[in-house]
């Protein structure tokens, strides 16, 4: 899985590409662990290149939210596809996460 990282001011843009399934979600989990102590003020988790999320992927997303909360960072989720949005809806995650339409809008909000 390709995971693109980009710094914008004090915030981090994280853009995983591919499926967040039972196998590949572990790579996103590792990427999140790597940035945990990098001192970012906030994180934009760009979902626009994620075509698929299973409950294993949601576990990692939930972990990301808890990690950000413990570091007093804001984490915004941006640009989910209709299918990914449906998974967020079915799981009740839409009310737990701050979801924005685009990564650009989310990043602007964190500046």
């Amino acid at each position: 899985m390709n995971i693109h990282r980009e710094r914008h001011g004090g915030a981090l843009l994280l853009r995983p590409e591919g499926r967040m399934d039972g196998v590949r979600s572990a790579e996103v989990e590792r990427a999140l662990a790597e940035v945990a102590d990098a001192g970012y003020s906030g994180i934009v988790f760009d979902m626009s290149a994620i075509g698929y999320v299973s409950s294993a992927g949601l576990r990692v997303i939930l972990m990301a939210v808890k990690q950000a909360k413990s570091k007093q960072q804001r984490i915004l989720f941006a640009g989910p596809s209709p299918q990914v949005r449906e998974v967020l809806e079915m799981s009740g995650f839409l009310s737990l996460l701050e979801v924005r339409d685009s990564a650009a809008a989310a990043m602007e909000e964190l500046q």
Partner: protein
Amino acid sequence: MAGYEQRGPHALKLRLMNRMEELEKLHEALGRFGGACGFTEDQVFRVSLACEEIVMNIITYGYPEGGEHEIVLTAESLPGEVRLTVRDDGRAFNPLEVQTPDTTLKLDERPVGGLGIHFVRRLMDEIRYSREEGINILQLTMRHEEEGMRNEHTP
């Protein structure tokens, strides 16, 4: 590819071992199957998600004693519906008896598990479970609108 059998354009039989890495094979096979059947992106997504959750559940909880086991998935595209059957020799498990998780809990109260089976129940129109001679047999049916299919069984 080992364990992969596309039986004509509208039927698939897939043998998976009880290892997480086998999910790669599952997704690849279902993607091809959906392509051959003319599924929409959304239909491939639903079938893939339901199958991953069921198979992951079997791999994670089905074999507390460990060892190598085979999980057999068949998929069949019929006019107006897709039928999926998953067979495994793990411990008896009826997903219909699993409690629906509370999806309204706040962040700190959220358990990490339990969502997979909930998805399967939301995505599928019909779920049947039986246990026959030590084998779990789970049959899932997803119905769909005909116009979603591009080349549905035209002779």
